[in-house]
């Protein structure tokens, strides 16, 4: 059957793309209407911006500003050196003009749930900007130029993974790219940032897609969008008709609405029919995928010359009176946005970053928006069903039916409970994309995904421990080898020395040697004793 499908896909791949049936998936209630009612709003400039520049134990950061420095809008504040060679730097720019007040750890609205190093910027309200250098005709730029400009603008994957876009583009140079897929599926409930962006600025997104297509030298560009977004589809069709790019145009594929069809591998399978093997990168199969937001950021970076200082973020949830989509400056805090949406503080129970299925709760409303914050939900107390009492797994298999990776969540749960690493790996725990579809359908209300996350962490820790212990073992073996070699050398030196002199001279030489040995040993022990005395004296002094 799959062979047939593949044959069909090969047959059609020259001219048409079509959506294929994907494995598993769910159709949760979308809850998107509220935030879709508004247009994209731009926020006023907040007085204080907290611009995240990297996780505490993340990559090295080069700061380009000092505390107390006055900076203009678009000024580079820091560079995150993701790899040691300096090829994948991600610069961070000032979203507005103002003074750097401090650099400290604070909470960021992203999935890491860890504090990040942030630059605190007190805005002066003047919004004085540096001169931008727009490139009105991107088709005159070479591939490397585009990649350079995108890197310089600090564009990273806006979908959530946050992988530097320039890196992804330069990776494309390693293999011939057949498909560039622009991911507009946005299948997770609550999130509407991409949909509103497409609805209002489809032209720019299509231009951005063209730029990405040129930069990755892709043969075809496909924009994949769910069939539940008719307005965005209309806007895209309009934009595709108007487009006047030099390259061959983009194509639009409408895929059936199903969560998690927006997941990279699932979407690739849906659109191209190619199943990416585990552990392989899509570029190996000639496919690269970018998010709609990334395409827009690429457009801004090239055509407007503007660095990535803002992103589109959905604010929704029952605790907000008017849910909206904002074009929000990086570093704006969540409470500032909540105020703009009319928050009922008493009603708010928790704040979630991301959608309702893959999002994570963040503790403080002071959390800053970073480049990957696509949605913030201010959930009211009765918005999400309080976790009900867990019941026993009845092995109904609903979870296996909806799993997009064709795993067996019920078995994984059982093996997680017994911490059976071999079975967990054999059952493909590491292929779990943590989409939460199994949790969603589980009639026993079991916390499947969080169990898997813990198991993954445990396995990863164990793997690292083993790696470390292997390393230590190597070191120990080398140490033993070294000690033995030194001993052998000492023995051979001793063996060689008496062979040289004459028989008569031998005792004298030995005596001399012994004496010298003795003297040096005595001297050493005296030295040590003296040093010990000194340290003791100093320590006593200190203690007094």
């Amino acid at each position, binding site marked *: 059957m799959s062979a047939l499908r593949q044959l069909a896909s090969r047959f059609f791949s020259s001219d048409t793309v079509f959506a294929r049936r994907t*494995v598993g998936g769910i159709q*949760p209630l979308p809850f998107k209407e509220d935030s879709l009612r508004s247009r994209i709003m731009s926020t006023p400039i907040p007085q204080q911006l907290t611009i995240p520049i990297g996780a505490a134990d993340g990559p090295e950061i080069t700061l380009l500003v000092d505390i107390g420095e006055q900076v203009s809008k678009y000024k580079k504040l820091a560079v995150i050196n993701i790899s040691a060679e300096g090829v994948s730097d991600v610069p961070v720019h000032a979203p507005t003009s103002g003074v750097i007040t401090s650099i400290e750890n604070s909470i960021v609205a992203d999935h890491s*749930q860890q504090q990040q190093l942030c630059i605190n910027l007190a805005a002066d309200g003047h919004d004085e900007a540096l001169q931008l250098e727009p490139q009105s005709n991107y088709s005159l730029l070479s591939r490397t130029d585009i990649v350079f400009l995108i890197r310089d603008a600090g564009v990273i994957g806006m979908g959530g993974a946050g992988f530097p876009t320039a890196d992804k583009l330069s990776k494309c140079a390693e293999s011939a790219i057949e498909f560039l897929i622009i991911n507009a599926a946005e299948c997770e409930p609550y999130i509407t940032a991409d949909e509103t962006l497409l609805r209002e600025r489809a032209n720019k997104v299509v231009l951005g897609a063209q730029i990405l297509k040129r930069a990755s030298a892709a043969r075809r560009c496909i924009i994949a969008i769910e069939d539940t977004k008719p307005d965005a589809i209309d806007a895209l069709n309009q934009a595709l008709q108007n487009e006047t790019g030099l390259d061959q145009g983009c194509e639009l594929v409408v895929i059936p609405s199903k969560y998690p069809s927006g997941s990279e591998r699932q979407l690739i399978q849906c659109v191209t029919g190619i199943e990416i*093997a585990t552990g392989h990168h899509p570029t*190996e199969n000639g496919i690269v995928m970018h998010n709609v937001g990334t395409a827009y950021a690429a457009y801004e970076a090239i055509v407007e010359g503007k660095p990535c200082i803002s992103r589109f973020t959905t604010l929704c949830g029952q605790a907000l009176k008017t849910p909206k989509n904002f074009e929000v400056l990086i570093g704006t805090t969540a409470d500032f946005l909540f105020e703009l949406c009319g928050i009922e503080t008493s009603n708010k129970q928790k704040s*979630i970053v991301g959608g309702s299925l893959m999002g994570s709760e963040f503790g403080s409303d002071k959390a800053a928006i970073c480049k990957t914050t696509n949605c913030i939900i201010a959930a009211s107390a009765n918005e*999400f069903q309080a976790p009900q009492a867990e019941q026993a797994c009845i092995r109904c298999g609903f979870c296996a039916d909806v799993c997009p*990776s064709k795993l067996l969540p019920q078995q994984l749960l059982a093996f997680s409970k017994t911490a059976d690493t071999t079975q967990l790996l054999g059952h493909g725990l590491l292929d779990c994309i943590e989409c939460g579809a199994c949790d969603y359908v589980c009639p026993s209300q079991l916390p499947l995904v969080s169990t898997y996350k813990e198991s993954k962490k445990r396995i990863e820790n164990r793997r690292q421990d083993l790696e470390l212990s292997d390393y230590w073992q190597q070191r120990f073996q080398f140490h033993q080898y070294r000690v033995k070699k030194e001993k052998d050398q000492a023995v051979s030196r001793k063996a060689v020395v008496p062979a040289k002199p004459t028989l008569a001279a031998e005792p004298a030489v030995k005596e001399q040697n012994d004496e010298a040995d003795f003297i040096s040993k005595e001297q050493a022990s005296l030295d040590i004793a003296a040093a010990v005395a000194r340290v003791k004296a100093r320590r006593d002094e200190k203690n007094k």
Partner: protein
Amino acid sequence: MSDLMAGAPFQHSGRNIAQLMQTLLYALLPGIFASLWFFGFGILINIAIAITFAVLAEAAMLRLRNRVSRTHLSDRSALVTALLFAIAIPPGSPWWLVALGIVFAIVIAKHLYGGLGKNPFNPAMCGYAMLLLAFPLEMTGWHIPFEVINGPLTVDNLGIPALTAERELLSPLSWGGFKQALLLAFPFAASGAIDISEFVDGLAMATPLIEFKMAGKSALLAARESGVSLFARESETAWEIINISYLLGGLFLLYKRIISWHIPLAIISTVFVLAALFYAPGHVAIYGTPYLHLFGSATMIGAFFIATDPVSAATTRPGKLVYGIIIGVSIYSIRVWGSYLDSIAFAVLFGNFCAPILDQYCRPRIFGHGLRSKTDRARPNEAPVKS
């Protein structure tokens, strides 16, 4: 760290075990009504006794195991076990038989293994199999209410009453039928004047398959040949209708996606194929028609309601197919070559034995696994393009 992780998906479908069990109960209704129509109130009395004892046993066990009785009782799993057990027991069985079976099912087959979700064997079928081994006589007769009109009954050499004009069937739903069923279930309530032993011993009807096996002829075919209308209240056609009702209930479950099609389809097709292969009219060996095998006994209940019990069945899709085939082969072989008349219980229990190993070895291919060669083929030409 873990408390931050908790509750990654916040949204839930709202489905819960109680709902599933409720749907299952609804799906059993057509079959129960059909049984009621043909066998009278005996089936309802069975159900009432079974439910009473099941709930009592469940509550007692939950109490002993220090579980919150209210939440666990409300999952309705005990109800489902009781109902499945009650429809498998012949109507007109004495109360102690039903009670013993269901208490065995709930206490030993379910809770001693760790309660809901942990039992390796289908509790209802465990109870049934226990009764079948311990009380074979009581378990093989299906009582149909009747009234003796004249003279003693003639019984053939196998102890089966002859279908003569000397008795007249009572309407099972009549007052007389109800009284008879009550007396059968609670023999102690009978006054000395009425000798119930008469209709207990002699007048139970076996299922057509049993009758067929013993008498060596197809009662169903006979009934059809003699032109009995489909809805006549004769035991021979009764099973047909009852099986069709359960089939409808099963289709409803499939429609509601409570069960998947794998197990029922595998069982039914296996039984059908085996019966078709072995059926040889005029041959000395007695095998029975495929139709008789599918609709002459409890095949449909077994395929849609009993074998699909998720806890004890295989849970992977390929595993489910193999599980269904194993059960189908067991059903057929126990019926045809085995010494037990009713094969569903043993076949399902045998399937349950195999389920864990099926789960381990019959697994679907994980997305992105095992396609090294495919990827190579799908990979376009390797030469990097220089811009």
